[in-house]
């Protein structure tokens, strides 16, 4: 009996202490218990981490396996979209190139509005090192004939020397066989521009009148003499004047306005 009374008393004391402790601890700020917290964490965390990582792994794989089908579908959709976009880009590039060509033709036509012109583009260039003729994609079917003048946006290109139904061969002004009668814009004095075999694609202006005063940078245009080229088509500028001991032999280097290495769009002036 005594024993049970003792136990009851002990139980009561322990309960009281626990309750006091509880009251005490509940009033203590949690921040002040970091030491204990850290000890607890140190004990628990390794194992806990292991479980968490295991769980994560399994969970991740679960997700992977569950999502693979969705991913394949999504990937296919994206691929399809990419293909569509690439196609659109290509189409736009073609439209852009067309637009540029059309604009070039527009500029050309506006610039030479007084002439009736046939637009064309260069389809072939000479394979010889000693001549520079070109072939364009319009022929007798389009109304092109021999001796018609060919121009580009910046100036004179040459004239047609032969035509087929769908193509025309053009002798460009830089071809060594070409001779153009020109005049200097400032003084209106005439000279003869011949093509050269020079790599820099320049013209050699000779037969300069002895009294003529040439200035570097003077613009040169066709004089209309000769019956092939009309008067006033711009050719280029005088780049260099080469004086010789005899003034009759002097000549000038004329730089054509047209860049023949990049020549693509041209206009044929229909008679």
């Amino acid at each position, binding site marked *: 009996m005594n024993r049970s009374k003792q136990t009851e008393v002990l139980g009561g004391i322990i309960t009281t202490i626990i309750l006091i402790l509880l009251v005490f601890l509940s009033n203590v700020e949690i921040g002040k218990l970091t030491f204990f917290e850290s000890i607890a964490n140190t004990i628990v965390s390794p194992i806990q981490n292991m479980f968490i990582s295991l769980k994560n792994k399994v969970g991740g794989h679960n997700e992977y396996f569950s999502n693979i089908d969705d991913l394949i579908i999504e990937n296919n959709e994206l691929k399809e979209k990419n293909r569509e976009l690439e196609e659109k880009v290509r189409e736009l590039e073609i439209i852009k190139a067309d637009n540029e060509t059309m604009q070039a033709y527009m500029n050309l036509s506006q610039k030479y509005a007084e002439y009736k012109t046939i637009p064309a583009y260069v389809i*072939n*260039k*000479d*394979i*010889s*090192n*000693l*001549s520079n*003729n070109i*072939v364009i994609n319009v022929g007798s079917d389009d109304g092109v004939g021999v001796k018609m003048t060919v121009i580009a946006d910046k100036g004179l290109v040459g004239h047609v*020397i032969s035509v087929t139904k769908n193509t025309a*061969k053009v*002798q460009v002004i830089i*071809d*060594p*066989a070409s*001779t153009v009668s020109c005049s200097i814009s400032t003084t209106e004095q005439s000279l003869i521009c*011949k093509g*050269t*075999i*020079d*790599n820099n694609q320049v013209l*050699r202006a*000779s037969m300069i009148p002895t009294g003529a005063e040439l200035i570097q940078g003077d613009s040169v245009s066709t004089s209309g003499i000769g019956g092939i080229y009309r008067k006033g088509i711009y050719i280029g500028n005088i780049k260099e004047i080469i004086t010789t001991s005899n003034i009759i032999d002097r000549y000038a280097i004329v730089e054509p306005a047209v860049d023949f290495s990049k020549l693509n769009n041209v206009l044929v002036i229909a008679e």
Partner: protein
Amino acid sequence: MKKISVSIIFLIFIFILYFIQVGVFSNFGLFGVMPNLFIILVLYIGLFTNSVNAICFGIIIGIFLDLLYGNTVGLSAVMFCIVGYIASYFDKNFSKENKVTILLMSIGATIIYEFGFYSLNGLILGYDFEWFKFIRIILFEIIYNSLITIILYPFIQKSGYKIDRIYKKNNILTRYF
């Protein structure tokens, strides 16, 4: 029969070379100078077939090019014809066993063709002859043509002797002596 098939192969080869020349070498010049593959072809025909064949193919190639690009028709034809004849002359007088002789022949053919082409064109069309610029162009063309000949030499030799056997069955060993 074999000779006809060889001729057909040559004709096909002319077109292939034309497209290579237009498509590839027109865009990859050596200082703006292009090689002339047709000179090598005519030389090849002259060396390994006979003079008649070389002259005929020279004329065909020349007229073909003249019609496409030339200011007049016939000048390239004449020059290729001469190159073809000279090639067959080379064949009779020089050995084809050596790489250097083939190289020298290609250089000679290039000089003859370009010089003849330029002077004839100049005389007919009234060029202001610019010989220094011409020499510069021809030098680069010679270098380019020689490089192509060296690269193609194994092919030239192998196929050349096969054609040689068709055209010169009996006198292949005796013609040098």
